[in-house]
């Protein structure tokens, strides 16, 4: 296994310790619940925004805790939603007079943990709002009752409710806002390679040298279908078509375009993909107003990418432009 690991059981805690050590002034780490929270949270003037999810998607979500983004993240083990207790205790620790907002990527495990956690926290008097993120167009909603997955598009939901909450928005408004952003966000991903969970030590699935997997999620589960490896342009064109035609995005729309790396793909390739996606959208008369290129929601060390489109309006743009400060930073 070509990974930096000590005891695989300690992989997540050791990563979280590193995040805390690198951000002593702004972040606090509570080992009992894999909890990374803002050092200055909770505040009664601000709704506390909490995300769970499994680990292995970094920087999502433990590295995007901070001013203007999440107030806390309590991930589970690699690819496992957090235990219900983490959700409950985190929610109680982050309790604010303005309430607590649960951001949940739409997976059975995450939903169950947050359902149970919410029930019990509410029983203890915490006011809770919930937003489900399900931006992945690869999942055919109709066929499977579990519904679409929440993937890289969750960044836009987090960024917008994070900014609005800093401006003092109430819980109900944040829920409406988050649902609105989620409703105009579409993502589709693909993999060039599988990924290797530290505890497993080998790839989750095998992919031939000349194969790729279209429509993957972010947990190393296989995707829609396996195909012959194609050129960068062919891949981008399919991903853009799948996302753009889903909402659908139309001529004249302003959009945010995100090229997200799944963990093992260098940023040089992501920018190459961006250039093609930008041209494709331009060809459709779709106007890219904001760009995001890099790793936002990964699947461990998987080589691959996802394309996310968000329909923009001025309000949303100003929320995306609002200042934010997270562990995932350059300077």
């Amino acid at each position, binding site marked *: 296994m070509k990974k930096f690991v000590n005891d695989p059981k300690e992989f997540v805690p050791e990563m979280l310790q590193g995040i805390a050590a690198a951000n002593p002034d702004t972040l606090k780490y509570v080992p009992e619940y894999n909890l990374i929270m803002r050092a200055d949270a909770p505040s009664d003037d601000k709704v506390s925004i909490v995300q769970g999810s*499994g680990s292995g998607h970094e920087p999502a979500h433990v590295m995007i805790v901070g001013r203007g983004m999440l107030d806390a993240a309590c991930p*589970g083990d690699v690819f*496992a939603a957090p235990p219900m*207790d983490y959700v409950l205790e985190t929610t109680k620790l982050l309790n604010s007079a303005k309430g607590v907002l649960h951001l949940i990527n739409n997976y059975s*495990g995450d939903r*169950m*943990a947050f359902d*149970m956690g919410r029930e019990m926290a509410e029983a203890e008097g915490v006011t809770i709002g919930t937003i489900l993120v399900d931006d992945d167009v690869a999942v055919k909603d109709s066929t499977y009752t579990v519904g679409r997955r929440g993937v890289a598009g969750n960044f836009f939901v987090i960024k917008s409710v994070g900014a609005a909450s800093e401006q003092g928005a109430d819980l109900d408004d944040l829920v409406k806002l988050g649902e609105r952003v989620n409703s105009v966000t579409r993502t589709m991903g693909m993999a060039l390679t599988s990924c290797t969970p530290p*505890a497993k030590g080998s790839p*989750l699935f095998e992919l031939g040298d000349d194969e790729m997997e279209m429509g993957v999620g972010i947990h190393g589960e296989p995707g829609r279908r396996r195909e012959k490896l194609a050129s960068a342009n062919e891949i981008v064109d399919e991903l853009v078509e799948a996302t753009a035609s889903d909402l659908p995005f139309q001529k004249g729309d302003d959009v945010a375009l995100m090229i997200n790396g799944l963990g093992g793909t260098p940023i040089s390739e992501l920018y190459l993909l961006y250039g093609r996606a930008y041209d494709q959208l331009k060809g459709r008369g779709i106007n890219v107003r904001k760009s995001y290129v890099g790793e936002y929601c990964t699947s461990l060390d998987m080589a691959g990418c996802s394309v996310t489109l968000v329909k923009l309006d001025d309000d949303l743009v100003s929320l995306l432009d609002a200042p934010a400060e997270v562990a995932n930073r350059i300077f």
Partner: protein
Amino acid sequence: MGGSSFEGVELAVKTIAETAVENETYFGELDAVVGDGDFGFSMARGFEIVISDWDGFDRADIGTFLKKIGVVITGRIGGTSGPIWGTAFLRAGTASAGKTELTSSEVVEMLRAAIEGIKTRGQSDLGDKTLLDALEPAVDALEQELTAGSSGRDALAAAASIAREKAEATKAMIAKKGRAAYTGERSIGTLDAGAVAVAVMFERLAEVWPEEGA
């Protein structure tokens, strides 16, 4: 008669816990095929605590004991399995509240309560290609045997063979719940990890269960 003493309940829980820990890799491999490979890791991390804290659990009555187990599980196991297995133990605990031993029908009631808990929590049912597809038929078989007067050991043996058969049968099914559901048709041909786990656990129980009952 196939009822269960407190010792029997303890034996059952301990056996389940040991099976989960010993099969961490195997259960993980099963979940990796069309899932995300964390099932074995999640179960082992929770049930190893059940074993390490074994002597400390409150044993006022069977219900209290089972709820304590459920609390350990929801406290440490993540993914889908934490809520699913945690709810199962909590509901079983509620069904056996105050009791210090169980008649055979109480054993069955308790297991039915656990199954109902799983279905509500998982918004799932038979045919979704989950552990339910092995668990519910196994409990049906257990009930039949017990009402027919078989010994606990024989009843468990019957339940185990049904569980195994049904677990194997998940191969032909298309997943409608859980991570595997995203792969749709591609989930056909693969075993459901949870169903196999249930089968392995029943088999172990049938082995360890004493002739003279427990």
